[in-house]
């Protein structure tokens, strides 16, 4: 894993000390709330409906066991014993106190963590494929690129006051698991015809009020040119992006209004003008970063099909777990294990401090002490020996983490919604709970197969509802919560924005409507067809009848 250098350490420590002074100044009345708000937001501290909320960055979704234990400690000491993993691979504390936040930040700094750039109009935490470095379908580990971008964008003077927040995702695999098309800049590691590794660059994706998928602006960018090219994009955006209207300030609107070709040309012109040699990182520095992500000391093992087949035969629970939660590893004899944070009836993405500690312990005993956080609000143990899978499964079960539902209908993504969030127009979590309860039967979940339900509590779309095979958006209508359903969204290689099915429903009616949508899918699907594939073949209108009983 990447370790901070002296500069990083000094920077984070300085920010902690600064924030301590700022809090004291606020409490003493030397700063007004208006003056203080941007300062606390710069450190990830929000004021929500019932309490403060601290957002902690987990760059490219990678955590060490030590960091996870420290997060568990912080959760116990300064919160109510549980915390919430978000769709941006961040962790949110829901009940921190302002007066204790400097201590929390100091405790985070001890393990090289912070809440900087998790808020505000800056380049936010870089997200990535949760299987980075271990996926069987990977061209190259995207995390050194993520780390490079983190270093370049952290406290960058030119990009600290952008027209709007700015999100970058990077993936190195054939299958896009980082939803790059939904980001302001999406980066895919690719190999060109000559066999060289470089980047394919997409610009202008984003969800929210005006959902758009990013467009391709560069088919192949040599690796060494990344920072200069990103800088060119940011300059064009900074100069031409709109600052007059916050709803039009994202780079996606610039792409839309100026046109992809124009933006592409402006970026290329800027790129040609920039003194690349001075801006790009020294290849030696990239090599230094890459060394931190070198593969761990894998044992020379063979795959264990017979052992696993016998274990699956003997235990139906393990069989379901192996099918849904275990993924192919690039290294023979190893597997990637998804740990679901979606127990039936739980709040999606929540983990207790005891569970966080259990995962930290398991990551050391069944791996190399590394944990990943997924944008689907689950955790991953990236390096499990196949022969250890049955034992790991039993331990996960004992910790309340054995749900065999990764990627299935109860693996619901939901933002905090009106249970916590001051921007919300409706609740998300109770809807997620009600749907999960409706589909709790494991056999039924397996029958339905891969299906992503994603729920947002307002138009800001933190729950990525536009990208859900079934998306649910909570709004207010006539003084009550009202839920719009969209179908056909897809975060992956064939990224798509979901299409609205019809008028909003009352919350109580949502599970019935979802059930009717699922029934229409099951009745119409061909063998092996996923929900989204069937939706594309059957068409939107096939599902229209699902809402009729429940007009709201």
């Amino acid at each position: 894993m990447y370790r901070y250098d002296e500069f990083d350490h000094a920077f984070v420590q300085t920010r902690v000390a600064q924030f301590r002074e700022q809090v004291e100044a606020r409490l003493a009345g030397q700063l007004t709330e208006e003056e203080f708000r941007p300062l606390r937001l710069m450190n990830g501290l929000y004021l929500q409906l019932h309490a403060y909320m601290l957002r902690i960055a987990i760059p490219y979704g990678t955590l060490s066991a030590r960091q996870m234990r420290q997060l568990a400690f912080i959760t116990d000491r300064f919160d109510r014993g549980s915390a919430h993993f978000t769709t941006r691979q961040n962790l949110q504390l829901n009940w921190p106190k302002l007066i204790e936040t400097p201590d929390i930040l100091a405790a985070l700094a001890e393990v090289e963590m912070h809440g900087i750039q998790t808020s505000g109009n800056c380049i936010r935490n870089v997200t990535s494929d949760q299987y980075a470095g271990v996926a069987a379908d990977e061209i190259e580990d995207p995390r050194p690129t993520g780390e490079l971008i983190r270093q370049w964008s952290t406290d960058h003077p030119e990009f600290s006051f952008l027209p709007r927040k700015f999100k970058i995702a990077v993936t190195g695999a054939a299958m896009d698991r980082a939803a790059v098309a939904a980001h302001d800049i999406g980066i895919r590691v690719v190999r060109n015809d000559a066999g060289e590794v470089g980047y394919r660059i997409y610009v202008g994706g984003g969800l929210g009020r005006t959902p758009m998928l990013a467009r391709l602006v560069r088919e192949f960018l040599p690796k060494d040119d990344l920072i200069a090219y990103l800088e060119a994009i940011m300059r064009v955006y900074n100069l031409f992006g709109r600052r007059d209207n916050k709803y039009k300030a994202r780079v996606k609107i610039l792409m839309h209004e100026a046109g992809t070709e124009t933006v592409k040309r402006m970026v290329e012109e800027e790129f040609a003008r920039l003194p690349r040699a001075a801006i790009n990182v020294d290849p030696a520095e990239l090599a230094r970063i890459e060394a931190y992500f070198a593969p761990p000391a894998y044992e020379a093992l063979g795959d264990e099909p017979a052992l696993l087949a016998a274990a699956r035969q003997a235990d139906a629970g393990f069989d379901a777990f192996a099918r849904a939660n275990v993924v192919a590893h690039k290294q023979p004899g190893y597997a990637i294990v998804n740990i679901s944070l979606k127990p039936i009836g739980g709040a999606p993405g929540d983990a207790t401090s005891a569970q966080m500690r259990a995962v930290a312990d398991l990551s050391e005993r069944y791996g190399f002490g590394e944990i990943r956080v997924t944008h689907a609000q689950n955790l991953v143990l990236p390096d499990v020996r196949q022969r250890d899978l049955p034992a790991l499964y039993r331990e996960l079960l004992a910790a309340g983490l054995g749900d065999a539902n990764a990627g299935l209908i109860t693996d619901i993504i939901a933002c905090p919604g009106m249970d916590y969030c001051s921007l919300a127009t409706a609740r998300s979590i109770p809807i997620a709970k009600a749907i999960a309860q409706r589909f709790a039967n494991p056999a039924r979940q397996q029958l339905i197969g891969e299906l992503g339900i994603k729920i947002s509590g307002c138009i800001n779309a933190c729950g990525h509802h536009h990208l859900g095979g079934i998306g649910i958006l909570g709004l207010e209508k006539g003084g009550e919560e009202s839920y719009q359903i969209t179908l056909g969204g897809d975060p992956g290689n064939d990224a798509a924005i979901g299409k609205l099915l019809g008028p909003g429903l009352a919350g109580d009616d949502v599970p019935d409507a979802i059930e009717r949508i699922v029934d229409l899918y099951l009745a119409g699907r061909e063998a092996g067809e996923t929900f989204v594939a069937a939706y594309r073949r059957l068409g939107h209108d096939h599902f229209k009848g699902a809402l009729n009983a429940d007009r709201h």
Partner: protein
Amino acid sequence: MSKIKYPVIVVAQDLREGHVVFVGSQGLTRDWREAVVAATPEAGEALLARARIDEAANSIVGAELVEVEQRAEGIRPIHYRERFRVYGFGRQDSAFTDAAE
């Protein structure tokens, strides 16, 4: 802003800890049952003025008027968002049954 309808209470948040507070007859309170209800614009302004003193003293933030109705069992905020906020986290946890009903 749409025009405020009365009666109202004043809702704010504690600066140091973040929890929701109300202006009560004995000063700030965390219990919504103790919130002073203002039935007229003048009474509402007076209530808000009391909260502004606490804001100026850096003990609370975000004081605002919240519309309520009076019921036999106590006040009920008109908007569901404020019901969640006033009655408190977890009170609305059972799906889609109205808070505190």
